């Protein structure tokens, strides 16, 4: 069924003109409306003013009408609209609500009597206006959505750019610190300036290395070692800085090795993303700085080690001197070579080396030293009190053992290998003679020194065999300990008491052993001349043992 036709020029009367103006006002109001419901309300409310009919409803596309028959009819009339059949209504019509943005549904009206042509024209015009307003609304909504999306994207972009700018500012500031060589103090100062919060830089043990900002604690609080380790483990597992009470911590740990910790003091918890970012950048720059410092220290240590090795092995004087001068070291001062052995409560060569290094620096006794297995070789550049040095090492170790062999003075570079040999010999004699831990100066070795200096060791060997050869053979065959017993006995001036204590044997055992010695050698231990030769022979035996290494 087609829409009623309207012959406007003939029918445009005064009343219709007024009504059309009403439609115009309504249309404008719909255009200005802010929501679809407002438009639909206006449409529905206006219908009775335009035509003698009632509104059945506005059926949105896809919306349920509650009446399958009505839905089917609306589907048939489609976007053009048209007459439909409703129960109890002589006349009913579906006016399409459509516009540029599509078809939104139908305005369904009904009347007991078919409305006039003018009225139907007005109803159609109202539906068209509603459709146009809905279409406008739809397009505006789309535009608003697009604008909102664009705005959100812009906002995110602004946020990203802002974060990047802040990041660049932080990075730039800290990089400048790194390049300027201001070290840990500079890094702490920069992070403090960037965050406004106090900043501490600690070593891995919790000792304060640098502070920037107000209220520096004095003394600086330090966690127990176990809590510190626990904290560092937690921080290592976290990608971002971690909070520990009123502090935010970030680790400087290139390649997993914790070199230091940078701390933002934030008891009020005001640090935000910007502050965290500054802390993280600070940790990165601190890691670089600490790695650089450590690398320098390692290089210097390596160069020093090489220098010591060359000196001990007999170096080319000119190149060695040049190297020493480059290190800021005066090799042309008199030196002595010291060989030092020992350990703390635990046998840790590295800890022992560090203890010797600290003690030698504090004493002072010298700064050139190398580790050689369990021993540390120190080139002492002054005549220190060696016993005091030994005690200082024990203090550094917190107990344990320490003994030192001291070589003769080196006045020239060529003397270093000799002084080194002497120090090692002194150390071996100390072991061979079973002396207590002590300092043994080669200069003070007395008869040992004479024996070592003897060029013909065969004569020394024959002397040993002449006096204690039978005892050595007996010990070897029987697994006995007679030479050692004799040596201790003679060293202690024939004291049974002291000898038994040193050998940790019973007095009767000692007496038995001495009787065996008398029987095997046929010598009288009460004869001073014999005792002297036996003492010399045992020392010569120690010397030979030491020389044979």
């Amino acid at each position, binding site marked *: 069924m087609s829409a009623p036709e309207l012959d406007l020029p003939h029918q445009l009367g005064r009343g219709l003109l007024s009504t059309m103006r009403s439609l115009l006002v309504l249309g404008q109001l719909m255009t200005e409306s*802010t929501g679809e419901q407002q438009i639909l309300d206006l449409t529905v*409310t206006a219908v009775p003013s335009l035509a003698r009919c009632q509104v059945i409803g506005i059926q949105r596309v896809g919306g349920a009408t509650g009446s399958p028959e009505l839905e089917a009819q609306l589907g048939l009339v489609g976007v053009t609209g048209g007459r439909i059949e409703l129960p109890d209504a002589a006349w009913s019509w579906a006016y399409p609500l459509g516009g540029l943005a599509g078809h939104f549904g139908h305005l369904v009206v009904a009347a007991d009597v078919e409305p006039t042509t003018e009225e139907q024209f007005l109803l159609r015009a109202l539906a068209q206006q509603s459709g146009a307003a809905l279409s406008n609304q739809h397009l505006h909504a789309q535009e608003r959505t697009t604008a909102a999306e664009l705005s959100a994207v812009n906002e995110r972009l602004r946020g990203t750019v802002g974060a990047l700018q802040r990041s660049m500012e932080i990075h730039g500031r800290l990089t400048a610190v790194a390049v300027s060589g201001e070290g840990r103090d500079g890094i702490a100062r920069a992070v403090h300036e960037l965050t406004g919060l106090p900043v501490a830089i600690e070593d891995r043990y919790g000792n304060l290395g640098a502070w920037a900002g107000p209220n520096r604690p004095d003394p600086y609080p330090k966690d127990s070692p176990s809590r510190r380790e626990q904290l560092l483990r937690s921080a290592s597992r976290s990608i971002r800085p971690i909070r520990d009470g009123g502090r935010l911590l970030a680790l400087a740990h290139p390649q997993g090795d914790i070199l230091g910790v940078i701390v933002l003091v934030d008891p009020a918890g005001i640090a935000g993303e910007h502050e965290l970012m500054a802390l993280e950048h600070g940790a990165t720059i601190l890691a670089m700085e600490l790695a650089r410092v450590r690398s320098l220290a390692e290089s210097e240590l390596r160069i020093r080690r090489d220098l010591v090795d060359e000196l001990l092995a007999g170096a080319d004087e000119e190149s060695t001197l040049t190297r020493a001068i480059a290190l800021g070291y005066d090799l042309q001062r008199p030196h002595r070579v010291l060989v030092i052995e020992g350990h703390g409560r635990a046998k840790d060569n590295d800890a022992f080396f560090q203890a010797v290094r600290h003690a030698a620096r504090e004493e002072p006794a010298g700064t050139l030293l190398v580790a050689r297995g369990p021993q540390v070789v120190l080139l002492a550049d002054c005549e220190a009190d060696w016993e005091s040095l030994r005690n200082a090492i024990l203090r550094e170790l917190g107990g344990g053992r320490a003994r030192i062999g001291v070589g003769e003075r080196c006045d020239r570079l060529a003397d270093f290998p000799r002084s080194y040999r002497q120090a090692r010999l002194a150390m071996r004699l100390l072991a061979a003679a079973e002396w207590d831990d002590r300092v043994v100066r080669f200069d003070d070795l007395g008869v040992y020194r004479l024996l070592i200096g003897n060029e013909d060791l065969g004569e020394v060997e024959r002397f040993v065999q002449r006096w204690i050869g039978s005892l050595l053979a007996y010990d070897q065959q029987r697994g006995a300990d007679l030479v050692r017993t004799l040596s201790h006995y003679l060293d202690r001036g024939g004291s049974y008491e002291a000898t038994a204590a040193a050998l940790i044997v019973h007095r009767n055992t000692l007496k038995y052993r001495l009787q065996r010695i008398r029987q095997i050698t046929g010598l009288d231990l009460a004869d001073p001349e014999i005792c002297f030769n036996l003492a010399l022979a045992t020392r010569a035996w120690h010397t030979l043992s030491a020389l044979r290494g």
Partner: protein
Amino acid sequence: MTTPATTSGFVAMGLPGVTARRCDHICAFYRGPDQRDAVLLPFLREGILAGDKCICVMDDPDTDRVIGPLSDTLDIELSMRNGQLDLLGSDTAYLPNGYFAVDEMLEFWERGVGDAVQQAGFGFVRAVGEMTWALRDLPGVQHLVTYEARLNRFLPRYPQVILCLYDLERFTDGQVLIELLRTHPKVLLSGQLLDNPWYTEPSEYLSDLT
């Protein structure tokens, strides 16, 4: 040059090509504060320049900020001191006791407009009301359209124009909009002042209501 409404019978609204008549009761539809100010400020500016009494009732709590731009070209302080411009909040004018009463409101205008004309000697009065207060959940606000209808009887009593500001972003109920259309003889919409064909005389409208 602004021509006084007292002599010409025409009232410049301050908008290009928009002129009201004496005793017009205008419903201005707008969307949001910017569009409101685009109607309100020129209306007041024209009134002050013409020497009219201006009574402005705002629901926006920051009235000073709203009318602030007028100070660019006018001495607003002076206008307020000499009684040409009254700035009032909706709580003071429409809801003085925490509720809305039609009779009390009409008395308010009677006093305000009557005194301005009869005692202060103003030749013309411009009254403007921002109507969003009527959306509050307060006693009496349901009588808004009755008030608007009865206001039409008050208009001819004095040389005046009353401009009612309705924000379409706040007044979203289409049925209410139709009622507002029926109670205002003039509609200001999209920069056009229209004779409102929906307008219904108060006697007819009020009898329909009852």
